[in-house]
């Protein structure tokens, strides 16, 4: 099951600037494992120490929020798009 994972701008610094990632996965969890397996630094940004998806990161299969489906166990099929959507707060540009 080839799925495409969309990487949001704030996380592209951990994926060598790649905006998407393709892998074979039967569930959302497998797709995300595939992603963090390739880009290990992403892991702490997506998952808590207990391995749960962080609450300021949402994951969608196509346009459906997996929290309202079967969470990480949500099944994926060939051609599905998995989107990672973190919260962003900017209204201008912050610097520190």
């Amino acid at each position: 099951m080839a799925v495409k994972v969309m990487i949001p701008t704030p996380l592209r610094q951990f994926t060598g600037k790649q905006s998407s990632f393709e892998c074979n996965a039967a569930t959302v969890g497998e797709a995300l494992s595939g992603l963090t397996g390739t880009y290990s630094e992403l892991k702490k940004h997506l998952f808590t120490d207990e391995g749960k998806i962080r609450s300021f990161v949402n994951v969608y299969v196509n346009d459906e929020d997996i929290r309202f489906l079967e969470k990480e166990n949500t099944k994926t099929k060939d051609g599905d798009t998995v989107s990672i959507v973190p919260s962003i707060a900017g209204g201008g540009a912050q610097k520190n």
Partner: protein
Amino acid sequence: MAIQTDAMKQQDVKLSREEIQRYSRHLIMPEVGMEGQLKLKKARVLTIGTGGLGAPLGLYLAAAGVGHLGLVDFDVVDSSNLQRQVTFTTADVGKPKSEAAKARLSALNPDIEIVSYETRLTSDNALELFRDYDIIVDGTDNFPTRFLVNDACVLLGKPNVYGSIFRFEGQATVFGYPGGPCYRCLYPEPPPPGLVPSCAEGGVLGVLPGIVGSIQAMETIKLILGTGDSLVGRLLLFDALAMRFRELKLKRNPECPMCGDHRTITKLIDYEEFCGIRGEETPAMTEGIQEITPTELKARQDRGDKPFLLDVREPHEYQICNLNGKLIPLGELTRRVNELDSSVEMVVHCRSGKRSADAIHFLKTAGFKKLLNLKGGILAWADEVDPKMPKY
């Protein structure tokens, strides 16, 4: 979907001859017409923030004839705002943003009422400020204020037209519409400060807030007119580099602490605390780190005592200005640490001192001992030592 308050229904409002001429391109289209234009004239919209998102918002809402506009901003116009905050001119630098925006919007449309609030939105003033308005538009730039705007809107039952941006990516939706989701349904919690991108990844393409703020203006006007399909229940994602819009479904979360079936939040809270001190940035971890001020460093260099200088900023920042230090971006330090000599004393610097503090924490774990953090970074160097150095 239309927003109708008692005040809007009762007002007997007409358009003057001049107004009919001004809004003629609205009046001749059936989706607006006289009825819609009068709705706009009666509407009361509060915009939080007059910056990147607030600029197109304010301009388009004022131009469209939204009769009552409130502008909340505590900030002052800085020259670095002008790249994207198109309400302001070079002559506005140094002026309070809310005042400068009010002057600009009044010049654009003298027939509408504009109230500026030169204040920081807080848990103490939000409900009172929001009460007088039908729609709140969130154009702020930080997590604590975003949660505050959301919670105050849900408590008062007012729609919150949301937009946010990051570099070249934007999000927009409408929260707080009766029966629809709120910001907490989407994101129950803010990111912990340590996981928020730092200034190394900051910055924004100036046109991006123009596009996202314009989408917010459009959604606001549609809510007022009660026409079209609003973004309620849909999260619009915009990638300016790919020039691609995508849309995701947003649902009210029955377990949402703010608007769910068993709400646990019934009043405004301390949002700075909720977001972990400051939400937007991690306070520099300066504990256990020795510092050197730019003045002290310059004095040492002048004496011929020149410690090794490590610059942990990004290459594009180095091009703006530099102190001739060795450049290893913070993100590459782990991989390139073997390029450094732990036996020599090293001064580490970045733009303002935060990334260099992080670098020193790492270098300490890698066995380096003679480390000094340049206090205030290259910005402080420009202030204290070299006024000709550009600041960014």
